[in-house]
């Protein structure tokens, strides 16, 4: 077990793609760290850099305080679970589990002891003689994790390990992963684009976009205090509603919504409101409110999602220097999603008045997308 750190790590591929830009991240011993971001954001490349399957163009990667940037994978003492499992198809489960130990010349009886212990822990005892082709998806997943963990590596790397499982199995394996981590307390780096996995599994999240680290923090911290408009929109499901607004004298105006935001400087800005921060307005509710025309209602049982329009203009979450938040002529009606009590009986076509929960409106700089914190 060991800590892992990136110090200003950059990876540029031979054909010129800049996959990871100046990544600095410290993962203490025993932490469950999630690298999360949209596909193609460089999170898998970052993981492969730790594994040694790619070599960093510049910067330093350390494992247990030792610089490993130019070491081969076998000298790094890490283990990895691949998205497609990559089990050796010509070997039995037993030999798949033992392969890594055998390659490291662990004595035979020690190999048998560790394989037996791992298969007992993961419930693989019945499957040891089978080949990967004879296993179900969940079983293969388990074998892949067993193969990685049986070596007792310094760090455990997982590349979207649950993405090939069906929804039910995914939930089950998610809980199992958490259990394994609590039991072995091994430094884990987990790559996913699924923000539910990111929120539920991680001790901390690192949100990555366009090869750059956007924010690091505990799931709750990242959810409650997003550093910028990208993180705000990416973490949370359904995503945060983003509206263009104009601030003057401590108030921000977006369509017919007017909220008091003392810390926001005068001029254009972006307001962010999570779907769960809106509710139906009571008759003499003093809170800021806005009209909402319901277009589609999605009942989820305990709660419901209502999609519709408000007066105002939508802002884009993909803020970058090339595409500022306010590009193009957006409609004067902005599409908004609201999460409401499931017992409400709302119909498409209805107009309701929504109130905004006090203190749950986020403001972002219109040019950089950075959060404006009061």
């Amino acid at each position, binding site marked *: 077990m060991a800590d892992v750190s990136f110090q200003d790590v950059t990876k540029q591929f031979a054909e010129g793609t800049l996959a990871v830009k100046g990544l600095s991240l410290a993962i203490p011993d025993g932490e469950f760290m999630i690298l999360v971001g949209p596909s193609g954001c460089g999170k898998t490349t970052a993981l492969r850099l730790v594994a040694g399957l790619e070599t960093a163009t510049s910067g330093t990667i350390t494992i247990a305080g030792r610089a490993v940037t130019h070491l081969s994978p*076998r000298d790094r003492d890490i283990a990895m679970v691949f998205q*497609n499992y990559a089990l050796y*198809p010509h070997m039995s489960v037993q030999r798949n589990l033992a392969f890594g130990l055998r390659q*490291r010349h662990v004595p035979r009886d020690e190999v048998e002891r560790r394989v037996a212990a791992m298969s007992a822990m993961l419930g693989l005892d019945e499957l040891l003689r089978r080949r990967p082709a004879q296993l179900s998806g969940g079983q293969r997943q388990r074998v892949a994790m067993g193969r990685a963990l049986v070596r007792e590596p310094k760090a455990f790397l997982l590349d979207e390990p649950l993405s090939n499982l069906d929804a039910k199995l995914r939930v089950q394996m998610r809980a199992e992963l958490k259990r394994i981590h609590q039991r072995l307390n091994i430094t884990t780096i987990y790559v996913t684009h699924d923000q539910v996995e990111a929120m539920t599994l991680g001790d901390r999240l690192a949100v990555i976009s366009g090869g750059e680290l956007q924010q690091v923090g505990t799931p709750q911290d990242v959810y409650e205090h997003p550093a910028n408009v990208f993180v705000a929109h990416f973490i949370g499901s359904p995503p945060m509603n983003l509206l263009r607004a104009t601030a003057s004298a401590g108030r921000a105006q977006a369509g017919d919504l007017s909220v008091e935001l003392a810390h926001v400087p005068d001029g254009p800005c972006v307001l962010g409101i999570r779907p769960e921060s809106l509710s139906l307005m009571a008759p003499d509710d003093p809170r800021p409110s806005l009209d909402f025309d319901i277009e589609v209602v999605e009942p989820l049982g305990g709660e419901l999602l209502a999609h519709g329009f408000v007066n105002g203009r939508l802002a884009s979450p993909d803020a970058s220097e090339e595409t500022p938040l306010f590009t193009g002529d957006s409609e004067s009606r902005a599409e908004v999603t609201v999460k409401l009590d499931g017992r409400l009986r709302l119909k498409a076509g209805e107009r309701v008045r929504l109130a905004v929960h006090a203190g749950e409106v986020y403001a972002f700089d219109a040019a950089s997308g950075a959060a404006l914190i009061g």
Partner: protein
Amino acid sequence: MATPTLIGADRPLDFEALPDKRPRHWPFSPWHLFLIPLSAAMLLPLVWSVITSLETSADAQRFPPVLLPSSLHFENYVHAWNSLPFGHFFLNSFLYAAATVAGNLLFCSLAAYAFARLRFFGSNLVFVLLLVTLMVPFQVVIIPTFLIVRKLGLIDSVGGLIVPNLCGVFGIFLLRQFFLSLPVQLEEAARIDGASRLAILFKIVLPLSAPVLATLAIIQFMWSWNDFLWPLIIITTPQHAPLQLGLSMFQGSHVTQWNLLMAGTVMSQIPMLAVFLFAQRWFIQSIAYTGIKQ
């Protein structure tokens, strides 16, 4: 607003005018009309040689050939076997074929894996140069090869047959293409598991390459077994001759004993047939890569 109408909907459908799409039932596919004569043409030399091997010397010389001999002379096989050192021929051919098959499997695997997976300076250039040598006919390189083998002191020995054929460009190309098709994650998993490049080749890649290795083995065995030109050039002693060269000894400068030559030829093809029958299940079998979810 005009109601949309289907084109032709104003006319009643004329069933008589529709073409008859019912299939005609021939007892064979039309392809057979082409394939059966072709098979017969391919088979004729084989049948002819088997028949000749069972005829008397006189019948075998006759023209037009006697395709239905009056009597069968199985003793031709005994005569053929006894009149020349067939035991030596078989042994030499077997050594030649077995050694070149083993050599090709080993050396082509190593080279092919390097070309498929290792990045080294000039790898593409070297590979293209190797491929170019495939286009050079053997006749062009006979003299340099002969000189090298003579320098090695291997003229007129089975070793001289084997050494220039231990590794072929065709084998490298065939295996490289197959290795490229294997999922790279398996090798990455093995690298992380601590396997060296050689361990990956021998423990992961080659076990998954059985079909293509069997293919290469059969092709190389057939090629070495039937090789005539190179043995003709470097072998002078009958004891060192492989089968195909040995058989030519039935062809005298004045008389050719066709029936004995054909008996010997038929015998020489039996091991080839055995190898093919033995290896064809590997030929046909394909590996299911179900450890990887595609």
